[in-house]
């Protein structure tokens, strides 16, 4: 056992011992100071998740302490003055206990068949292949050469000036960027990604965005952003008009929750989400990333027209933070985006081997600085929000607006690169913008969202309903018809949900089950596709243009029962992505034997109908004319070969199929058994 693993085992033993020791303590309630003005509460828990085919995917020991101090102002300006906060620390031992999956031993060399290499090499050289024994087992970052010389590998494009393999970019510590998602049977483009923590292998790490080292993965809250200080805010309320109205402030790091919807974020977009923390479709309370916000409310209370009405203004003063999507190599990474980004970043920084490029069955080495992700641009502008919320004739409603930056990244093409088909040093004028090239910067576009929500109760159906909708301007999506490979689109999202307590007598005669369902829709209003490319050539595969679905519908269903006075709570949660034809079902049982102990055992099972979705992967674009011109056109001497044109539509899962697969489809191979034990006080 290595030292780290030993430490991990030790930590687990200590945590387990601590939990057992707590069990022997007399019942401890929330702690209050003698005058009752200070309260402390919290928990320590252990989460053990095991993933099918992988083993341990989470072994997290976590402690959380919530505190609140009421200053109890008597007289003066404020009717309320208080300080609240939440501290959280966790240690995930999976990076030590399962370090060949997620830790410093993760990944390895990657090899793949490339029978098309000789022909492609011949094409590159304008003649017959130079080597009689064509390689059939090229390796990532290998040097293409006679196998008899022991130098098999991918074809280095001319711009590489030789092998991209080097001590700094070895064929080790790698995985295919989507190998945990599907089996690469579609012949589409494949990239390899480094997967070890960034202090072990810095390749592909994106500074200030996806660059966690081993300790930052183990101790997720120990970051430069002081994420252990999860929340810290000051509440102040100034009574006005004899106390009928209130002007209230909550200033500090906090969660601001908008909307009325479970699982979907239509209006609940003020705080970003840490998708790397836990699996999809868990409660957002634990995965929202609290931010420093000035939250001002003017509460009118009841007026002549409304039972309740208030106006809220938000200003984020802490630096912009995007969603944490999980970096390459983490067990939880929504859409597998972290792997893709790390692979692309490594391509730009060090060069990389791309399998099935330019056609299925070949593998080429791209030099550094020609494709991939160059940089990330974290915006530093202002973010504002406003909301009017109230109750009118028993109907709760809100109108919301947020001027913010997208928390999802946009890969904006158009960065200057070197032509990999030119000799080392690039073509004349390099580096420059090559239309349709895979060279990107990650940016977070400025967005403006308007929306609203309502809830009401319909007595005849014994059901409460909620609706929520939003209209967001200028979101950005991958678009293979665009020279920069992205386009803007306005997006309309909506959700309709219901809650209905329903007695199911044969399951429980005395306690109703909560049945809760939701339908969520997303529509890209400026979605465009075409069957012909920018040069008027017909697609060889699917639609060109936007690869996200123009419209999509998600369905969710929750059935929750309660037994033993709600101390035993079985739950069935299911979600289905209609376009991806992917679903997840999550049965679980919670048991609370006392005020202090909480146990949860759950399964998280996903399925998809058919294979992984494919999308135009842009490999057939004529990015570096004439080298990347389609062979039939080149053979015919077409003048089209001399100018860039957009993709001809050959498809594969990578890179854009993941957006069609959605968060459920990309996690289809992440079936898990989950167990949580918590001591709370």
């Amino acid at each position, binding site marked *: 056992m290595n030292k780290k693993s030993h430490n991990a085992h030790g930590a687990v033993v200590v945590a387990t011992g601590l939990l057992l020791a707590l069990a022997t303590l007399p019942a401890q*309630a929330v702690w209050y100071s003698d005058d009752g003005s200070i309260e402390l509460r919290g928990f320590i828990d252990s989460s053990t998740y095991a993933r099918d085919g992988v083993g341990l995917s989470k072994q997290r020991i976590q402690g959380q302490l919530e505190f609140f101090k009421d200053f109890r102002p008597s007289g003066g300006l404020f009717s309320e003055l208080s300080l609240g906060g939440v501290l959280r620390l966790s240690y995930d031992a999976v990076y030590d206990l399962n370090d060949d999956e997620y830790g410093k031993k993760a990944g390895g060399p990657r090899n793949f068949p490339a029978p098309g290499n000789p022909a492609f090499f011949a094409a590159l050289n304008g003649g017959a292949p130079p080597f009689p024994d064509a390689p059939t087992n090229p390796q990532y970052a290998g040097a293409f050469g006679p196998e008899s010389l022991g130098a098999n590998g991918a074809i280095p494009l001319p711009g590489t000036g030789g092998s991209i393999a080097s001590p700094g970019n070895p064929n080790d510590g790698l995985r295919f960027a989507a190998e945990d998602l599907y089996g690469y049977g579609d012949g589409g483009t494949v990239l390899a990604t480094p997967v070890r923590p960034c202090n072990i292998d810095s390749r592909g790490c994106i500074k200030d965005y996806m660059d966690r080292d081993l300790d930052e993965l183990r101790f997720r809250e120990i970051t430069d952003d002081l994420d252990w200080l999860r929340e810290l805010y000051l509440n102040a309320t100034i009574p006005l008009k004899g106390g009928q109205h209130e002007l209230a402030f909550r200033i500090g790091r906090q969660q601001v929750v908008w909307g009325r919807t479970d699982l979907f974020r239509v209006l609940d977009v003020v705080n970003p989400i840490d998708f790397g923390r836990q699996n999809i479709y868990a409660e957002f*309370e634990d995965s929202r990333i609290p931010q420093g916000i000035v939250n001002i409310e003017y509460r009118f209370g009841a007026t*002549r027209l409304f039972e309740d009405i208030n106006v809220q203004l938000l200003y984020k003063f802490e630096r912009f933070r995007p969603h944490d999507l999980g970096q390459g190599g983490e067990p939880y990474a929504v859409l597998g985006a972290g792997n893709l980004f790390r692979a692309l970043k490594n391509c730009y920084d060090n060069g990389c081997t791309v399998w099935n490029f330019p056609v299925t069955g070949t593998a080429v080495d791209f030099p550094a600085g020609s494709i991939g992700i160059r940089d990330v641009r974290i915006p530093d502008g202002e973010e504002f929000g406003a909301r009017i919320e109230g109750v009118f004739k028993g109907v709760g409603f809100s109108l919301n607006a947020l001027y913010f930056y997208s928390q999802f990244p946009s890969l904006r093409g158009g960065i200057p690169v070197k032509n990999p088909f030119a000799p080392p040093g690039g073509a004349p004028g390099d580096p420059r913008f090559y239309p349709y090239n895979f060279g990107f910067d990650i940016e977070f576009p400025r967005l403006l969202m308007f929306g609203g929500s309502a*809830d009401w109760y319909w007595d005849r159906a014994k059901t*409460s309903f909620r609706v929520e909708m939003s209209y967001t301007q200028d979101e950005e999506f991958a678009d293979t018809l665009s020279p920069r490979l992205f386009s803007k689109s306005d997006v309309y999202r909506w959700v309709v949900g219901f809650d209905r307590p329903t007695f199911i007598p044969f399951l429980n005669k005395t306690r109703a089950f909560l049945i809760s369902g939701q339908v969520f829709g997303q529509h890209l209003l400026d979605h465009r596709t075409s069957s012909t490319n920018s040069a008027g050539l017909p697609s060889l595969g699917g639609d060109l243009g936007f690869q996200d679905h123009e419209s999509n519908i998600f369905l969710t269903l929750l059935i929750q029962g309660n037994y033993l006075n709600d101390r035993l709570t079985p739950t069935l949660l299911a979600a289905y992505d209609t376009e991806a034809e992917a679903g997840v079902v999550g049965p679980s049982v919670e048991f*609370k034997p006392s005020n202090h102990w909480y146990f949860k055992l759950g399964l998280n099972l996903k399925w998809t109908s058919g294979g992984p979705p494919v999308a135009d992967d842009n490999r057939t674009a004529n990015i570096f004319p004439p080298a990347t011109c389609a062979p039939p056109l080149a053979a015919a001497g077409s003048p089209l070969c001399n100018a860039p044109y957009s993709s001809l539509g050959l498809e594969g899962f990578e890179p854009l199929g993941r957006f069609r697969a959605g968060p459920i489809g990309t996690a289809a191979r992440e079936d898990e058994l989950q167990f949580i034990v918590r001591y709370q006080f």
Partner: protein
Amino acid sequence: MNRMTAFTAAALIAAHGTATAAVPEDVIKASFYPYADGAPQHEGYTPGMHVSADNVDQIKDILDPFTYRYVKQGWYEFDTTETFPMTLHPNYIEATRQYGDQVTLSDQGVIENFRAGRPFPQEPDPDDPWAGTKLMWNFQRSINAGDSETIYPFWWTFRNANTGKTERQIRFHWHFLNWKHRTIFEPENIEPNPGEIFRSIYSTVLEPFDLANTQLLIYRYENDLQRDDGWLYLGFQRRVRRLASGQITDAFLGTDAMIEDFEGYNGRISDYNWKYAGTQYILMPYEKHNEQKVLDSEPAGDRDGFRFIAFGGKGNCFPQVTWQLRKAYIIEGSPKDPNHPLSKRLIYQDAETATLPLVVLYDKKGDPWKYFPICKTHSDYHLPVNKGKGVALDDCALFFDEQAMHCTTLQFKSSINAEDNRPNIFTVQQMRKKGR
């Protein structure tokens, strides 16, 4: 004091421009002073006697059948005390005197022409098909929580009735506010009130951690035919969730109570058919808190030195308070909704205060299910803030599920005050504000 000055008889008279008392004094006396001519008596019963399995048969006629069975089985023993009046606040009585003859019922049994006080102070008429409904209106428009009540701390304890083991304990902070027809605190009607809310309940869970910050808000509207609105703030979601009315008749947070059970009955009058089933002298848990022989050791360190009513008996489910012989109206309620979990809600309404200190519930098959006594203390014998409020104050309660042999015991520290219950805390926004 004196918050009640605005509702003096003079003010009422001035408002209506007449100096003539509308309700005959003998009706007022019978309704509000039933013990003016002496305490009730019953053969075999002596105030001060200790009631146990050994002697319960001799007083069977002055016990409800549930209490009798439990005592007979040896599950519960209690002391008794002299009957003492719990005279309601004079403003409430005066309002009744002025307006008690104006109130009528619609064809649907909905109260009309009501301003304040007890709507139907007259003795129930067995031949009146609406007699039961009128008694329930007397309860709903009573000062059960004195226009404005706060209960803090308020502990609900889950107990295994067989073993006495405490399973869970939920600690609450509750607020009750009457928006209309107020007689103790100004104003008579809180404005603005565009939704025409009659009454609001707002509560917050303080413990345990997994339920902490859960908040409940209920609006009962002046129009009894209008469905209640309810919202639940879930701390683990940090979001307000609209309640479906089905949740009103479902176990509340895993307790043995439904939201509909709060205070004896917390639904719309129009949700049930109510039948007056007679008048009876019966033992009920009315007491003087400060004179109880035994009190709980909790809440420890209370700044007022307050101690909860203790529980004991079978499974530690039964309140250790004194009972007394009082005049009660028996009301049988049958839910109109065929999907309602109950077949019958049998209520023993205290005639003097119109509160509901004894409620028993029958399941859909008609079998005895739950026993729900609410201890009421004289408000002069409780916290100093309650002195002179003229309210039969909630002091303890028990939800006993005899089929599951499980109980939830409720321990109150109630205070009648206006300061803690500003109207703007009874808003959905308050739940978000308070939410953590």
